[in-house]
């Protein structure tokens, strides 16, 4: 691997438009860049969406990529940051046989040690949740593996840029001045039988 590659978190503020996910995703796949993690959600400002994308690349590539992203019509702004410049978390869920936890003190201790919280407890299995950085959530998988880990899933990274105050204010002002358009969804998908077609 190129030693100049580093983990970058790209934060993209966008309109809420159908198809935009694809428009962003193809900018990566076109260059054969693997997306390590992708999260999309509404932002703190109504009408503006936020993508958080993690890739391993050189700064040069990431900078150019962000310009290409920003160039797309429905995109407001794209930032890129190194891990030092952000606060980030991932959420992980672990499903383990209940009897293992109930019977083995060691497992219980482990879960506490990793700050895991029980989400669901059933007779046959229990689902725990942790939040943390990749190494932390991954480590728990490793230690639970010998105790019959049934299933594991991890969310995409969500990240807050440490130095983001200015943009947040601008964003709010922007949305207030020019509210976004509402998404128009396909309202006909369940109306097959009512429409004449040829």
């Amino acid at each position, binding site marked *: 691997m190129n030693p100049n590659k580093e983990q970058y978190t790209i934060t993209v503020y*966008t*309109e809420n438009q*159908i*198809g935009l996910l*694809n*428009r962003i995703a*193809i900018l990566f796949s*076109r260059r054969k860049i693997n997306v390590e993690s992708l999260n999309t959600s509404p932002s703190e400002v109504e009408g503006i969406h936020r993508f958080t994308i993690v890739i391993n690349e050189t700064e040069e590539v990431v900078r*150019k990529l962000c*310009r*290409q992203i*920003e*160039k797309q*019509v*429905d*995109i*407001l702004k794209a930032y890129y940051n190194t891990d030092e410049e952000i606060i980030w978390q991932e959420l992980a869920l672990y499903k383990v046989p209940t009897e293992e936890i109930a019977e083995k003190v060691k497992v219980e201790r482990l879960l506490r040690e990793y700050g895991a919280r029980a989400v669901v407890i059933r007779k046959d299995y229990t689902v725990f949740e942790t939040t943390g950085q990749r190494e932390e959530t991954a480590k728990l998988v490793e230690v639970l593996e010998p105790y019959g880990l049934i299933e594991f899933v991890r969310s995409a990274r969500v990240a807050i840029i440490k130095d983001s105050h200015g943009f947040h204010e601008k964003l709010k002002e*922007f949305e207030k001045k*020019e509210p*976004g358009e*509402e*998404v*128009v*969804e*396909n*309202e*006909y*998908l*369940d*109306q*097959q039988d*009512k*429409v*004449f*077609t*040829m």
Partner: protein
Amino acid sequence: MSNATTTPAPQSKAKTTAAKKAAPATREITGSVAVLDAFIEEGVDTIFGYPGGAIMPIYDALYDYQEKLKHILVRHEQGGIHAAQGYARSSGKTGVVFATSGPGATNLVTGLADAMIDSTPLVCVTGQVFAHLLGTDAFQETDVINITTPVTKWNYQVTDATEIPSVLAKAFYIAGSGRPGPVLIDITKNAQIQKFNYEGYTKCTHIRSYRPKPIVRKEHIRAAAELINQAQRPFVLFGQGVILGNAEKEFKEFVEKSGIPSAWTILGLSALPTDHPLNVGMLGMHGNYGPNVLTNECDVLIAVGMRFDDRVTGRLDKYAKQATVIHLDIDPAEIDKNVKAAVGVWGDCKETLPLLTELIQKKTYPEWLKRFKDYYKEEVDAVIKDELNPSTEQMTMGEVMKVLNQLTKGDAIIVTDVGQHQMVACRYAEFNKTRSNITSGGLGTMGFGLPAAIGAKFGAPDRTVVSISGDGGFQMTLQELGTIMQSGIDVKILVLNNRFLGMVRQWQELFNDKRYSSVDIVSPDFVTVAKGYGIAGQSIDRRTDLEKAVKDMLDHKGSYLLEVVVGKENNVFPMVPQGCSVSEIRLK
């Protein structure tokens, strides 16, 4: 249209605008009529298209608009979109295309990619299956939005007629503003049929998430002017940005005041008259000798509306490393993309060039300019002389261009296809007017020429349009002879036939030990083919017939095909071999 049923209109969120107080008088129209009304409002006069099932309601509405909107029935959707590109490039207006769903839409893809990379403003409207059928593998359904996302500046699917006026307004605004590009609007059939209360059309002039023009930063202009004023050997490279920005006058003033030798990319060709004393010729792989060599000797390189394509730069790590680069471009993503700029002047060159011209000193660089001339003399001796006045028995493409120049006096629009003839045409064609060179530069689309020439003629009906193709590319879209026949348009078709796929053959000769793999192409009798379409023509293979034949073609009333049989294994030189620096350009 046999289908009189209107679909029930479910509550649409798009109707928020319809609830305005004191609403103006509305009338009920269909989505199809709304499309055509938008065209009229946007000043569209010509549509290139091909009907089909999913776009029938729009074609039905078009029946009543025949007086206002000229529809050119093409023979293939690819021909339609290339024609729209030619129209846009010759007229400066946005080209408009209709195609149906499925294969109609997928046939547009090559043209979209071409228009995207060459920044050509287009609005393509495709029909789509009924909204409720989306995703069911319905007849002629294809996911055209996702297929075209990488090759459109913007695209959008309409499933409700109420959206049509505002979406088309956005489409025209996006296609034509900033760095232009193709936009595709996919309209489901129910939306075409659906009736809604139409409040009239409002042009779009602003989209909150879209910045067509970056804000011009005066400090960058000052920094650029300072560099230019201190330069000893400055060199200007100009591209299509000058033409797209309608900034030919501003550019000429800049060049004349600065006194800087200027060379063009093939899309920038014709932005500055060929015979301008500071026009030093063509950049890139088959460009002129001096501009390529001296790129690596200039001290300040000023790039105006061009994007440092690899065919222009050759090896990047040996490209103009000694020079301080100033890059003027409307697209911020272009600055530093390929060549790092010391000063990036973001903005429309129509605005930035006058600001720059004001701050620079009036200068001349006689010594420096002479170096370009000296290299040109060397190129004349080694290449140009034999190309324009050959002693070989077989004709060269260059001498055909020479005769064409003499007869058109640089006034014609020359539309080329892709390959050797394209490089020769760009190298030797003379132009007095802007928007006269139309070619597929970025994508290199064989088959572009003939349909683009048809469109160019519709875009500039008073000008002579000459389509130049090779025997290979001409066969890729020659079905558009049918479009010429039916529309009665006057396009001069020059086919330079070397009985080879010449450019690939040249590479095989130079780099693959003459292993001629699949480049030997057999052609039909082009004159007979043309005759089948009611187009007059002749074929010549003797030099003595050349001048008269070209004159006959140009003087003929109506379209005319002239095939000129040229040397089978002629090469285009100079040439920067792939992987080499521009200064390693070969003369033979």
